[in-house]
């Protein structure tokens, strides 16, 4: 197991957000482990993604479907495409286990999604559970806690 520095973890998180903003979504989805999940809880402090409602709780298969659909020819709600922008506060490494090669980072963010003349601003915190696999960092779980997760929301079409 290579030693991973805080700077490498932080750089990974910036790069992950850049991939989404650049709509390199296949490359982004490939960052997840085979059993990885993208989770957007419906309430603050939520601990259960299965028997409580969530805005999203997607495994790798669902993420692949979502990404493939985004570029599909018959995806009418993506003609034209949605664009997005992440503004990240400096990520903090809040837990690490070098022996197991697992790390947890927390990042406050502002996220903007836009399509046609509409633009929406979201704020929240991302928690990344990262794991070292075959010398690469991978996302085991990306948890996105929206500040207004319980509000009446507009469509959210991309990834925070």
């Amino acid at each position: 197991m290579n030693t991973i520095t805080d700077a490498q973890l932080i750089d990974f998180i910036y790069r992950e957000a850049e991939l989404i903003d650049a709509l390199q979504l296949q490359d982004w989805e490939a960052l997840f482990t085979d059993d990885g999940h993208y989770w957007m809880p419906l309430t603050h402090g939520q601990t259960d993604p299965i028997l409580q409602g969530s805005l999203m709780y997607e495994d790798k298969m669902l993420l692949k479907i979502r990404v493939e659909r985004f570029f599909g020819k018959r995806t009418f709600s993506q003609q034209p495409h949605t664009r997005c922008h992440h503004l990240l506060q400096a990520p903090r490494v809040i837990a690490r286990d070098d022996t197991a090669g697992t790390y947890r980072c927390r990042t406050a963010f502002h996220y903007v999604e836009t399509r046609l003349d509409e633009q929406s601003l979201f704020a929240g915190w991302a928690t990344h559970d990262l794991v070292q696999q075959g010398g690469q960092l991978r996302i085991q779980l990306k948890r996105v806690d929206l500040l207004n997760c319980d509000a009446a929301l507009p469509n959210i079409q991309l990834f925070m």
Partner: protein
Amino acid sequence: MGRYANNPAAIRALVRESEVHKDTYIDAELFELEMEHLFANTWVYVGHASQVPNKGDFYTTTVGTEPVVMVRHSDDSIRVLFNRCPHKGVKVAAETCGNTGKFFRCPYHAWTFKTDGSLLSIPLKKGYENTGLECCEASGGMAAVQAVHVYRDFVFCRLNPEGVSFDAFFGQSLSTIDNMVDRSPEGKLQIVGGVLRYINRCNWKMLVDNQTDTTHPMVAHESSAGTAAAAWAKAPPGTPKPMAVEVFTPFVSPYEFFEEMGIRVWPNGHGHTGVGKSIHSDYSDIPGYQEAMVTAYGEERAHAILSENRHNTIYFPNLTMKGPVQTMRVFKPIAVDKTLVESWAFRLVGAPDLLLERTLMYNRLINAPTSVVAHDDTEVYERAQEALHSRGRDWMNLCRLYDAGEPRDAAHFETNGTNELQMRNQMRAWAHYMTVGMSEQPQGSAT
């Protein structure tokens, strides 16, 4: 001066046999009249008894655009109050839910009200001595909605004190609620898991129309459900079918499937798709569930309950339900071009957790602000809301499988699942409940 207020003939003329005038979706005056008449003359869903299990428990919501609070009164009955202090008009209960104890207290001047709405106390009461307050409207406290009906824990109200009775309004359509409740081995539902709330920038009726529109899924949802079906087709043989694939793929069933699925309409604008079978018919068995149902109801009855797999049931005007997956949506009108969707989930009390897992997965995959299925629906609603303003055409078409002899008041009627009959049924009810009791002012008589 509007064109439609006090002009029932003009309103009725918006609904032809198989066409609806665009104004019903884009005219702000008609929206105001809907709030004043349609949402007051009909029985509108308020909430579920499981949200207010204990005395003093309350839940705040809207009926049409009017704020109300549903509360468990000291006698254990459920009351619905207009959520407005009679003093200065402040909304009394602000939280979505909570327990108010024995009384509500207005945050402005501390007037208090019993949970039936009656005025309990006013600070510095001597200031009202000999003022005639007892003759003022305010002495009546928070106004209570008089027509409230709880049916198997579903709470409905009719804002107008007079009007059609609950039983006459819903008739046999209550069988959808019955089936969902009966799917619990204990005959009991609980609202759980939180509510998904999202805004569509379109008229509320577009969402209602869409519920029984069975010729759009294979078109609008090809991008999502079709992609899921294609991904599943590439899975190695023997791979267990994921729950999400079971949820997605029926949306891209062929036209013939939806034709055979059937549609049933009831009077007063209610109806449902999926008479004999539906997109919810072929979900995997949940271990332990069948056994619990047979134990509770016996073999024959359990089989009958679980064989009823209705797709979407419309409770006109703005409630829709999916019994076989235990989900429910309320389409809350906000403005002529703005609607709040609320997606609710039910637990079948006494059933395995895996059913609730499927219910919650269904809601977030299909009926959520983050749903790739809902995104394509929203897209067409919002395009329609914009393009209906075109002067090129004035009417929306509801002609599919129209028959001049189709029944208007039959207790129930079943037909081809791609018939747009339910949309016509809704709009016929719309014209009726918009205009019943509306006073008619002679037009152009004042000179």
